[in-house]
């Protein structure tokens, strides 16, 4: 029997497909991830029940999700902003580490009250992260050096820098462990409960640190910049057609530097918030991968900063729920990585479905060569 696939180029993307893509992508990734679970002799329904239902209904699970979401959302924005200008920031991980290093240095070397110390730590982190992201941006704007490669390679440099500093100059605390000294109380992010009006009455806020406010502020700032300012208009335009943008008198240099500097600063905030809010000290072994997970987050949420937030929350659930599943069923932690990878794969696949309408025909003729000369109009 012959099976023939028919591809018709779409003229317009139907609304359900455009808006449903992120959801369908996630569902498809979970469905295929279920195959891996079955292979491990685990009932996928049980496992996903633990992963999502228990995580989202327990106080502990929700707290963990919000804490995890802080660096994920911030790093997601660090990829999202350059994406809007048509650039790929693959190095959010490095910018996050640099931010954490600079913030940690301030935290353990400066003694000030918390009101002054925390802002100073965050400022130092922003400067370091922006600097780290500014290098690929400048190279791209000035010399057209591919930012994917430079930002990725700088991540490795950042990792080595982390390893060196935490074993050498920044090593601290008791014993000879490769880690920084423990943060003082002044340098530790307080829980939300005391900061938000009425926060004490919400049990969830007792253990969620103030980094969440930073993340929310970054999301709001990104949203406002992209939808309410002239700079956001320029970013959108450069991202769509940089030649036309040049003819309209927009500066590619400015836009490239802006998105990378702001993105790098956001990633750095994610790094220092994680250390100062959750870890309490900077370990040389700290390699969270948030900056890499940020890539699927930004791709899933590429339509707006709000969607980046949702995608960040989803991955936080996936991480937290994933470790519960790991404990409850003894499945490898790699499962979460598999689902993460599947999300990216299905996102790429969905681009194809957005472009073509696919039909399947059985038993037509013995010809296995569909449209050749023609293939439809490449413009769609």
């Amino acid at each position: 029997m012959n099976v023939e696939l028919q591809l018709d180029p779409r003229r317009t993307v139907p609304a359900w497909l455009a808006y449903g893509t992120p959801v369908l992508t996630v569902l498809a990734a979970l469905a295929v991830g279920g195959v891996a679970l079955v292979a491990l002799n685990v009932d996928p329904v049980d496992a996903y029940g633990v992963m999502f239902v228990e995580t989202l209904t327990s106080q502990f699970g929700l707290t963990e999700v919000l804490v995890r979401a802080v660096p994920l959302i911030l790093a997601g924005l660090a990829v999202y902003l350059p994406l809007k200008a048509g650039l790929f920031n693959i190095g959010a991980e490095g910018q996050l580490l640099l931010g954490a290093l600079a913030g940690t240095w301030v935290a353990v070397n400066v003694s000030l009250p918390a009101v002054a110390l925390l802002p100073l730590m965050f400022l130092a982190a922003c400067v370091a992260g922006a600097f780290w992201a500014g290098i690929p941006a400048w190279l791209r704007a000035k010399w057209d050096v591919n930012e994917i490669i430079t930002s990725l390679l700088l991540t490795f440099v950042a990792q080595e820098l982390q390893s060196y500093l935490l074993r050498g100059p920044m090593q601290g605390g008791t014993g000879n462990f490769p880690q920084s000294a423990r943060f003082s109380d002044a340098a530790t992010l307080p829980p939300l409960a005391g900061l938000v009006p009425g926060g004490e009455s919400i049990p969830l806020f007792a253990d969620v640190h103030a980094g969440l406010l930073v993340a929310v502020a970054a999301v709001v700032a990104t949203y406002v910049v992209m939808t309410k300012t002239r700079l956001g208009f320029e970013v959108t335009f450069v991202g769509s057609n940089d030649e036309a943008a040049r003819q309209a008198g927009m500066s590619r240099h400015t836009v490239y530097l802006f998105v990378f500097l702001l993105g790098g600063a956001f990633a750095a905030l994610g790094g220092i918030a994680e250390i100062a809010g959750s870890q309490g000290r900077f370990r040389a072994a700290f390699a969270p991968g948030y900056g890499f997970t940020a890539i699927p987050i930004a791709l899933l949420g590429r339509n707006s900063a709000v969607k980046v937030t949702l995608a960040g929350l989803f991955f936080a659930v996936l991480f937290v729920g994933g470790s519960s599943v790991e404990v409850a069923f003894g499945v490898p932690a790699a499962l979460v990585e598999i689902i993460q990878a599947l999300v990216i794969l299905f996102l790429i696949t969905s681009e194809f479905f957005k472009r073509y309408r696919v039909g399947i025909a059985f038993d037509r003729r013995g010809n296995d060569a569909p449209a050749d000369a023609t293939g439809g109009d490449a413009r769609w």
Partner: protein
Amino acid sequence: MTREPFLRMENIVKAFPGVVANDHIDLTVERGEIHGLLGENGAGKSTLMKILYGLYSQDDGEISLSGTRLRLDSPQDAIDAGIGMVHQHFMLIPRLTVAENVVLGEREPATPFRPDADAGGWLPDAVRSNSLVQSLAGRFSLGLDVPERRIQELADRYGFDIDVSAKVWELGVGQQQRVEILKALYRDVDLLILDEPTAVLTPTEADLLFDSLERLTDEGVSIIFITHKLEEVEAVVDRVTVLRDGENVGTVSTSDVSRADLAEMMVGREVLFTVDRERVAPGEPVLRARNVSATDDRGIEALSNVDLTVRRGEVVGIAGVSGNGQKELAEVIAGLRTVSAGELTVDGRDLTNASPRTFIDNGVSFVPEDRNRYGSAGDLSVMHNAAMKDFREDRFGSGVTLDYGELRAHAEALVEAFDVRGVHDVTDATAGDLSGGNLQKLILAREISRDPDLLVANQPTRGVDVGAIESIREAILDQRTEGTGVVLLSEDLDEIIDLSDRILVVYEGEVVYETTPEDADRERIGLEMTGGGDATATAGAQVRGLGGSS
């Protein structure tokens, strides 16, 4: 006539969200006929042909070929039925040879595997005739000798001068088009659809194409020729069907109608081919370029020592054969290309090598030659594109903020004032959704609404339908009346002569001749465009538009 025509399309209906692209269209084509399909951009020509070629399926209506009803679900169905199409954008793989491109998807196995015994011969028949071997050989081996011979025969038969073993990237545009036609002929088509085939060709190449088409029809091939150029209809087409707004306006023999009749059918009203230019006394010089030199993208000198002065209320036409520095000149005076020597002033201010932004702020508007690549961002909304240069103005918000409500109102006003069609919501429709003519109107609207001091328009009416051409030309002349200095670059000599107050001819990066439309001698201009006085008079005939109304 009761005889069934070769191709019959009956009552074809095709609707897209928001528009009916084909509204009960009938079309018949006889064997061996060149049938024109004429209409403005967006009239439904391409949709109708995509239905015939199986790329779209019709909502209603029937297609029959030689009396047999066809169901076309894919281009493969169309090719099997003997219908081929040559797209405006070629579907060729540059790295492959002509023969490889032609056999793509229809390839034959390598010689030793061919089922006919005498071909290669060293494989035992038992192996060769094994169906598994056949199927593997068909997939994984490629025999080019037999197809090459056949393609060469086809090329010779139809008078195509082409080397079948040449790589496609080595060929010129006209030759690539012939490869596309060969691809169709190799599949034994009886009906060939050509989508605006001359849009990419030089006039000489177009003449060659027309000769080939006649040879094809002599052999019994029918041709549907999509175009919006009236002179082509007169030159090659036997009968023409005119579409307007998705409806069939009528089918006529070209010998029975005049160009003006066709234009009226196409646009739905009388089209003025002559433009009335009011007398405007030119004012102060707005642009002064002195001794300007510049290089092209490859770093080769494209402009040398050009002097150009444009006054307010004056249209200066720049004529020349494509590739003689017009693109670079336009970019230099729009501030998009740096000059290697010389100076440039706009309204007395020295803007030599200033940023594009400075030129914009000093009242220079620019209509680029390539509206998709430089003039608009296809993925973004009409609103974004309408405000591409003006979004910095105070009326669109204060400080760093941008008022999207105002942007929307601005875009809607432009769409309304310039009759840009196909936009129901300026924030929803993208620039890429617009047809060529409508996009060009949007770009012109954007540039003119800025009240420029200097308007630089490079090929503003290229690839645009008759109705849009008329309104674009009017808009340019209105600018002149309002005291804008206009630089018009065009390969259409009629357009230059109709619109300009002064005409400059560029050849190899230099201004070689200057005249006025009153004194203009087409022969002379043609000569200057192609290399000056020492060329022979026939050289002038190669220039587009020269065969016109002189």
